[in-house]
């Protein structure tokens, strides 16, 4: 169990996080929030990188020598550019836990297969594409099956098939590990998270299972057709427009509103994206 108790972090007078309480068992937890809202700061606190904060972080019990407590994929991961993928993973494995070289090599082989790195294992990190490098970062984060895995924008640069593979993998890994994913790509969290936390203005403004969050938005998402932009603009500033697309020479808009925004509006099933928009984008995409 990973517990965060009354976490507060300020940079000078600017309070970034306040009253953060979490109690996380094995599972996948998504953290949604706009850029600069404090997601990365929260991950840095959990990782131990930031020591100057108030509150407590209680980590799961583990054998310090034999086990790897935590894996972390930071947002700006670059690794050691002069090492090849296999050299890098073996190096990281040996410093993460005091286990035999064979065990490290076995784990590296497994992770390289999992993240589709085996064919390019002898390539240096400095020549990899953004997606390949991200996969190396993911492989190192999951190395030696840590108790906690922190993933900051994990799918940055991954192509659609890699995203699906990634989601499939963490869905299965989430049974035995505490996986925390910070992202603003809402689709990354769909259908895989045990719980989603929405961070805004220092606090968690909303949290719960995907279903409960969607329920909270039930009756707040509408779709309506507009003949032209002029007609649509009447709503700007009053309600949040979640998305727009052309539909049979008209403009179809997805609007977040507690009441029907126009007479012909149809109430639709909310998505996680709508939940996110409800919290962050006053005015929406228009």
């Amino acid at each position: 169990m990973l517990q965060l108790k009354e976490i507060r972090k300020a940079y000078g007078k600017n309070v970034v996080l306040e009253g953060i309480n979490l109690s996380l068992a094995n599972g996948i937890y998504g953290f949604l929030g706009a850029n600069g809202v404090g997601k990365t700061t929260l991950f840095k606190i959990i990782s131990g990188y930031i020591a100057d904060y108030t509150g407590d972080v209680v980590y799961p019990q583990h054998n310090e020598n034999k086990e790897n407590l935590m894996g972390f994929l930071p947002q700006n991961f670059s690794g050691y550019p002069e090492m090849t993928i296999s050299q890098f993973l073996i190096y990281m494995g040996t410093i993460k836990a005091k286990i035999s070289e064979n065990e490290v090599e076995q784990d590296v082989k497994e992770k390289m297969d999992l993240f589709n790195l085996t064919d390019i294992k002898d390539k240096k990190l400095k020549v990899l594409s953004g997606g390949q490098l991200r996969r190396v970062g993911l492989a190192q984060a999951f190395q030696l099956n840590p108790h906690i895995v922190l993933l900051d924008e994990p799918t940055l640069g991954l192509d659609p098939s890699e995203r699906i593979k990634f989601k499939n993998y963490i869905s299965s890994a989430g049974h035995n590990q505490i996986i925390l994913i910070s992202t603003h790509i809402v689709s990354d969290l769909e259908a895989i998270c045990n719980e989603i936390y929405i961070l805004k203005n220092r606090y968690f403004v909303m949290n719960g299972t995907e279903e409960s969050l969607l329920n909270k938005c039930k009756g707040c998402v509408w779709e309506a057709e507009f003949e032209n932009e002029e007609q649509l603009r009447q709503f700007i500033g009053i309600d949040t427009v979640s998305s727009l697309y052309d539909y049979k020479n008209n403009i179809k808009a997805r609007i977040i509103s507690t009441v029907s925004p126009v007479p012909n509006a149809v109430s639709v099933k909310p998505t996680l994206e709508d939940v996110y928009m409800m919290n962050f984008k006053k005015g929406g995409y228009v």
Partner: protein
Amino acid sequence: MHGELKKYMGELYVKVIIFVFVISPVIIAVLSVKSFSTVKSVEDSQLLRGTEAISKERERYQYVRGVLDQEKLNEALYYYQSISLEDIAYVELGIKYPGIVDLLYEAYTNVYGEGNHNLYDLKNANNFYSQNTEQIEKIFEQQPQEYTEWEQQIALSRAEKVRAPFYIEFSRQWKIAIKNIGILLLIYSIAIILIGTNSFAYEKEKNMELILATLDTKKLYTMGWQKIKTFLLFISVMYFVMVAIYSVVYFFMTGFSGWKSPIQIEYFTIIYNITFLQAYLLIIFTGWICSMAIGMVIVVLNSFLQSVYSTLAVGFLLIYSPLIISKFSIVPNGLKTFMRLQPVNALMTEKLLVSLHSQKFLSISIPEGVFLLICSIFIIGISVLVVPKFFSFRINRE
């Protein structure tokens, strides 16, 4: 260790440094051999240079080669006095009695002060082997503030124990070799500062500190140890490769003669009983230990500052400033001594050998060069203990 080594080796600037390590000893060896010169003959003042000059000098030494006894010294002295013009006498003696002329000058003329600068008034050279104490006393008279009473007594008693008679043979190449080790050490010290400035800031430079922060202190400690071991191994290998290349190239061209001759035949006032080969090896060993100490000072700074540029700036200042500070006459003696004991002084290879300073260590008086070694080992020891702590502390803190 392999992983840590991989980090160093891949960097372009390290590759450039390795190239400089390989090429600089060859260049220095070749240039210094080319700088050898000697006059062709008494009749022909044309200068011979390079290996040709070395062969000529070695050939001339055949006449004086062997034990330098009173008879040989007096024979040379009288030959000198038989020529009325001093300049010509000096050159001719240098040709007929190579090596001896400089020794006579160092032993009998006031090279360290005012007074006689030639050998015409000298009756004989019978007291040649006791002249070192005379000359050392003159040094003390010239620089009364520089040496304590105790240091003077120690130096004089050591000077009296210098073994005599000397065995003389062609050995001028050793003097240049010792000086050149100083130049190589200067290049090497700059190189290890450059390597050291990135050794512990490397993780921060590559944004790896966020990942490493997830490790517990013990693992970061182990990583710090690995980094130190790799750093010391890397710079040591580079050092010995550089010295080996230099020695092989240089002595291949100059020859190895004179290796068992006492160092006094080139440096008359040295107070230690060592041969050229011993002195050369001692200088190499001192250079190695002191360079590691320099490297470790940089690594301490780097593990604490976690920044390449600030380590570079502070490091250069900290490492090289003792060489300058100790030169100012207004600097108090205590501070001067402290500055002389900083590892960078290993660069001054000749100065270390001719030094008349002594230090007390556990109530035993030891030569300052040896004390410099002890200080450097102490710096290495302290740094090895401190660096992993700094490293793990700084990785985990923001």
